Structures are given as C-alpha cells and as structure tokens.
C-alpha cells in the first residue's frame, strides 16, 4: 500500500517536472503542425481572394491531379537516392582511411570536416560558379584536357543540372557520413580483427563479416539523418538552379516555397507541407524500426 503511494507521488512529481518541456515542445512542434493541417483544409489564395473558405480535403484531392507536385516528388527522390548512395560509399571509404594510423591523421580528420562546416548557401554559390558554362572551373579543365571543344551548359540541361546538384551535395555531406561511420569504426575493438585474422580471414572477409554488421547502426543513423535532410533540401537548389531548368530540379521544398511565396496559395501550400511531413515521418519510422532491430542483433540484448 505504502510503496504505491510513494510511487504515485513520484510519478506526479515526474510529470510536474517535465511539464515545462512538454509545453515548449507542444508550442514549437504540435501547434505549428496542427495549424498547418488546419490551414490545409481551407482554400486561401491571397492572389485571388482574401477570405479563407473551408473546403475540407479539396486541397488533397487537387494534389493527385497536380503533375508538378508528382514531378517535384520524383525529383526529390532521384536526388535523395543518388546523393545518399554516393555519400555512403565515399563516406565509408573516407572513414576507413581516417581510421588507419598515419602521419597527419588529426589534421586530415579536421580538414575533412571543412565542406560540412561551410554554410550551404555559400558553397552552393561556389559550385554554381564552378559549373558555370562560360567562367566555370569544370569547363575550363575539360577544355584544357582536350575532352570538350565547346562549353557544356552544366546547369542549363535537366540531367546535367541534377548531376551538378548531386556533386555539390555529395561534396558537402560526405564528411558528415564519414564522421559518423568513423565513430562507429573506432568503437570496434581491434581484437576482433586480430581474432578474425587468426581465424584465417582476409581483410575483405573481415570487412564484410565484422565491420559491416557491427557498423550497421551507424550506417542506419547516417542514412536516417541524411534522408531527412536531403528530402527537405532547399538552400542548395535555390542557390544553384532555383529548381530549373524547366522545373527539372524542382524539389518538393522548392515547390512548396513557390506555392506559398510566389502564388500566395496558403491553403494548398499547407496541404503540401502536411503530406511531405507524413512521408518523412513514415520513412523515419521505418528506419528507426530497423535501427532498433539492428541494435538488438548486435548486442544480443535489448
């Protein structure tokens, strides 16, 4: 009886203590999300009319027929998939290199982080100049090497524009993945590799049978972070291509921005936000599920 009262009182104190944090969370997360959803139920376009009109799920229905929305979703998926895959491969390579003992490793580790530390808008501008068809470094190099005879419009053609964006994104965020994977690599005891070597394994076998499985949580975490970031990519695109040419690099975030800020269509913009948000949540939930599973797998306990 008595322990129950103690426990109940402790529980009450607990709630009391986390109440301020909960309130703040509700204010900065729950309220905007709820407000956006509420807004998405109205037709409100400041370009045509000022009064919001309740229209239920009309905005969502409109989305199904909105080719531009689906196109931007496709663009986002292409961008995300390609850049994350490349970043994972490069990031793993860098992490493995940085995990080796060599002279100047501390410097290399710090230097590797510089791209990630740069503001995206700044490095986006730099990359826009690098890929500039008249003054860009890329074209200049290709000219000098004799590979091309006339300037390539890197940012003026859909496939090449997407390629340029992926290059810039990979350059910027590979260090981030490398860093997370490096932390994981360092937590793997060298004894395991030695034991595996004595068991007769080659370095490649050790990589596949020891490194990869033990690094699974870090790989998933890196993918999760990068997915969430990449799916909502805005600044890089806005600075380098603005979504062009002809909407071929328009990501969901760019489209939402245009809907709200250029077309002043708040209701529909809110609906787009809600759907994108849900897609992200689902993807993150799936990743988190696998993450918890891989953790159990590795340690053999919860």
């Amino acid at each position, binding site marked *: 009886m008595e322990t129950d009262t103690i426990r109940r009182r402790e529980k009450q104190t607990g709630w009391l203590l986390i109440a301020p944090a909960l309130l703040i969370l509700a204010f900065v997360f729950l309220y905007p999300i709820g407000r956006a959803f509420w807004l998405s139920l109205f037709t409100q376009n400041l370009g045509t009319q000022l009064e919001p009109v309740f229209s239920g799920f009309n905005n969502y229905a409109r989305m199904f027929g909105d080719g531009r929305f689906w196109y931007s979703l496709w663009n986002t998926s292409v961008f995300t998939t390609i850049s994350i895959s490349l970043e994972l491969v490069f990031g793993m390579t860098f992490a493995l290199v940085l995990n080796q003992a060599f002279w100047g490793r501390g410097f290399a580790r710090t230097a590797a982080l510089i791209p990630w530390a740069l503001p995206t808008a700044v490095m986006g501008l730099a990359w826009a100049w690098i890929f500039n068809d008249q003054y860009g470094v890329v074209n200049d190099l290709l000219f000098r090497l004799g590979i091309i005879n006339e300037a390539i419009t890197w940012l003026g053609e859909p496939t090449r524009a997407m390629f340029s964006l992926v290059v810039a994104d990979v350059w910027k965020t590979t260090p981030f993945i490398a860093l997370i994977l490096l932390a994981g690599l360092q937590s793997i*005891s060298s*004894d*395991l590799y*030695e*034991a*595996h*070597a*004595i*068991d*007769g*394994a*080659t370095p490649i*076998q050790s990589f596949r*049978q*020891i490194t990869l*499985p*033990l690094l699974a949580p870090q790989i998933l975490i890196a993918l999760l972070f990068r997915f969430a970031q990449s799916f909502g990519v805005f600044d890089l695109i806005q600075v380098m291509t603005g979504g062009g040419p002809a909407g071929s690099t328009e990501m969901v975030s760019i489209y939402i921005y245009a809907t709200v800020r250029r077309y002043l269509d708040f209701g529909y913009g809110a609906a787009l936000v809600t759907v994108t948000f849900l897609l992200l949540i689902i993807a993150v939930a799936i990743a988190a599920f696998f993450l918890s599973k891989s953790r159990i*797998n*590795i*340690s*053999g*306990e919860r």
Partner: protein
Amino acid sequence: MAQLKLQNLRKQFAPNVVPVKDISLTVDDGEFLTLLGPSGCGKSTLLRLIAGLEQPTAGQVVVGENNLTHIPPGDRNMAMVFQSYALYPHMTVAANIATSLKIRKTPPGEIQQRVHTVADTLGLSHLLDRKPGQLSGGQRQRVALARALVRNPEVFLLDEPLSNLDALLREQVREELKELFEKQNKPVVYVTHDQTEAMTLSSQVAVLLDGLIQQLDPPSRIYTHPANKFVAGFVGSPQMNLLALECQGDRAILGDFSLPLPSFSPQPSGIDIGIRPEDLSLATEDDKITVQGSVSLVEHFGRELLVSVKIKGSHHTLRILINPDLQWEKEDIKLAVNPHRIHWFDEKTGDRLNP
C-alpha cells in the same frame, strides 16, 4: 609432431622501444610453456609475434619443419585465446565457434559435428544459439576456448585468458584448463602475470623482464632456484625477503647478527640475500643461526600469520610465516634461519651465486 621453436626473436618499434630483445626457446608437443612477467615485460608482444599479429624485427618462428616468420596469422594453424576473448558480438555462440572452419571452407556437416563435439566438451551445448552479450564472463571464456579448440591447431596461444574472471571461477577454470590441454598434447604458450597460474599450469615457465628471458625452468625449480634477484622477488607469495647486506670476512652482517657466507672466491664486500618467509621459523634452543627483533606488523592469511620482524640493530625487516597456534613475544622474537635455504645473489648483477 610439432615443435614450436623461437630463434633470436626481436621486436623493435622505435629506437628506444624494444619490447622483445632476443628470445629463443622451444616448446614441444604436450608442453605447457608460460610466459610470466610484470606488465611491460614483453610477454604479450612475444605471443603476438608467435601468432603473426606482429612481424619480428629479427629472428624466426618455426613450427616443426616450417619457418612461419613471414606467414600471415591465418595460415599458421595456431589458435589464440584473447584476454578480452574477442568474441564476435553479432554472431551466435555456434557461429563464433564455427567461423574459422567456415573461412577454411570445411563442409557444413563436419562444421556442425565439430562445433557440437567441442560445445559438449566445454558444456556450451545449451548456449549455442545465444549471442555473446547474453553470456556470463565464465561462459564467454569457454566460448573463446571452444573457438580455439575446434580448429584442432598445431599450437595453442593463450593471452591471460583468466584475468577477467573472478577469483573463485579463476581457480575452477584453471583446473579445467590444465586437464583440457593435457589431453590436447600440443605445444601451448600461455601468457600471464599471475604466478599462481604459471606455477600450477605449466610444465615450463619463462620469466620475462625487459624483453629478455630471466629464467626458463620447470615451475618447481623457478621457485627453489631463482636465477636472479628479479625472479626471486617476482615468484612466490608472500614475497621472498630480499636484503642487501654488507660482508665482513666470511659473514654477512644483519644488524646485531651475522649469517655465514658459503665459500665464495673472492669474498665479496657486499651481497644480496633472499629468504622465503616460510624458510624462517621461530627459534628453538637447538638452532644455531638466529636473529632477534621486534614485531612491526601481523597479517592474517587464515592458515598462517605473516609477521614482519624488525631486526635488532638494523633497518631491515624480515617477514616470516608462522602457524597461528604458536606463541611468541611481540617485543623480542627470535627467528631461526636455515642456511641451506638462503639464496645468495651478486650485489651488482643480481645473479644467483649459490648452485
């Protein structure tokens, strides 16, 4: 028949870092060699040289007729048990044990049969589906052993395999290890800093210091005939009494008393002596060589008392093991010294002087 032979092994990491200086020894089938020494003496490096985890700067590792010096660890047919056990945390016990066989492309049927045989021997059969994280320390240690045994290697290497177990378990596993490796009849090299393990398990003990073998002998001889002052002080618990004494004529001076020197030529001016606490006893009237002093400390060991006695007329203290039933006077205790049990060491080199 496999014989492990080390020839003039040396490992140098940097000009001043030479953990293994010049070590030669052989281990025959069924021989259990322990590398014993304090931390930093080079014993673990020596084991890693044998395993192939480190390349020697000079010297050779030979098993039977094969020079393995430049063979990678996986092709040496040696199994090693790590201090940390180094179990693969993401694999089940069965997969951990089977890894070396799988890498060697052993047929699955044979793998299963061998894993089960070893698991039976070590009492792991009910744990085969667990992950290392779900096992106790003792169970993990068995898995590490099983992983070594299942390969049926030519040489076993063990790096302080008992140091992560609690005292009771250690004693029990020690006995099991002894039985287990007696059956294997293969060369075993065992690294430890624990002299009890070295004394109980080994057929040969190599005492190491500063990358050199100080003494290579069977455990009993290491105990009764330590080759130098370091071995004398390192082996034996409680530690041997080691005193630096001045000599006058044919006697070594200990405070108000003196001990007869054996016939050394030339007669030294100073000498180091060692007497094990159990080789001292309370003096009776028949004893000829005695020293007197006052008790400064009494420690209970259960079976015996370890009594520290400050010798009259000197700053030296002798520690003596006494049966707790005996009576003695705290202020004036008289000890008998058995002259045949005194170890004499050169005061400069520390080498043993008496045969």
